[in-house]
């Protein structure tokens, strides 16, 4: 998944109206909450090559950190 597609996916997943970039801080996005974490894990379960642990998602600081979790091999 390209970075651009990932950002689109995350905006849809979080249902946010904020402007999101790869460097956006997750803390600053109101909609990055438990609902979005579950939705992101769901995305990972069906797209990531390796299992993404819940703690890894909770430790993520930027949108790029999430992208790296999803796309790591």
């Amino acid at each position, binding site marked *: 998944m390209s970075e651009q597609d990932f950002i689109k996916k995350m905006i849809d997943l979080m249902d946010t109206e904020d402007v999101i970039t790869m460097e956006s801080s997750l803390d600053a996005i109101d909609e990055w909450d*438990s609902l979005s974490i579950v939705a992101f894990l769901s995305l990972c379960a069906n797209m990531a090559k390796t*299992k993404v642990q*819940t703690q890894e998602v909770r430790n993520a600081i930027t949108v790029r950190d999430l992208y790296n979790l999803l796309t790591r091999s």
Partner: protein
Amino acid sequence: MIGTIADIGIDCLTATVSKTRMTVAERCAGLLTEKKAARLVKNTGFTHLSVAAPGICTSDFCVEAAERLFATTAKKEDIGGVIFISQTPDYPAPATSYIIQHRLGLSNDIMAFDISLGCSGFVYGVYVAASMLSNMQRKVLLLVGDNVKDFMPGDISGRAINGAAGAAAIIGHRKIKKEQNMLYNITSYGEKYGIIICPRGGARNPKITDEKGNFLAIQDNFGIMDGAEVMNFSAYETYGNVQSLFSHFGVNGNDLNYAFLHQANFAIVDALRERLGFTPEQAPFASDETGNTSSASIPVCMAEMKRRGKYTPPKKALLSGFGVGMSVASIVMDLSETIVLETGAL
């Protein structure tokens, strides 16, 4: 644990939910913004939740469901065992199955017991009933469900997804071909017991009270669920359980008419469905008007589909329950002869 059970089937089943249905916004009034409520509905798929009237217990839903089976298709004198599977019994003691035996007017010449399980409960119950029937000539009445009433004040995590329901099924002998045998896989993950837990109120830890003995409104006095861990448990342990079952017996997912997955919420059912390679038609989500009804959710899904005119009796179906324990129970079985009555309301 993988195995097969021959010559046993589900004769009939149905589910009962509350007459009272609330939207998530109504159920969580004052706790959610309009936007958050909309996001919750989009993710969970629950437009409405079944909310029991004050004084109504899980067993009341189960009795209503069982009475409808006895009024239409089953005979009380055939029952040799009653199993009640729930985490919301009428009393800490005695077991609720005895109260139900009495309320239904069933014979004293019967065995009755409760099992403490949540979302894997219905599939467990089918397995336990089927195992009992190997040396019993009568039938087993299986009752499952939950009605969680106490939520942490101000906390929406349970309130926004739990629905109250009870279901009843009758398991009996049936002469079937070998290829129609029940195929089961039951797996347990005690190391993950903290993912869904009521940490206080049992023998290990009393509820925390003030000096007058009033329960304090702190999370440990109520249920705790790590939703993110539940998602991963479903996507990996439940997936693994079903995959092992399929590969052991050479089951091809495409050959299944239905995959009834525990209706935890839409996001979980959909992620698991996609991972297992089922179409949305094969693995339906039909709990949108009831919420997550714990061990009753698979019968609720079937009864709701029946009510909506969308249920076709399946020759081969997967039933997979997963949750508190943590526990997974899956069965592949023939449900073509099983009578499903549409959802009732109490």
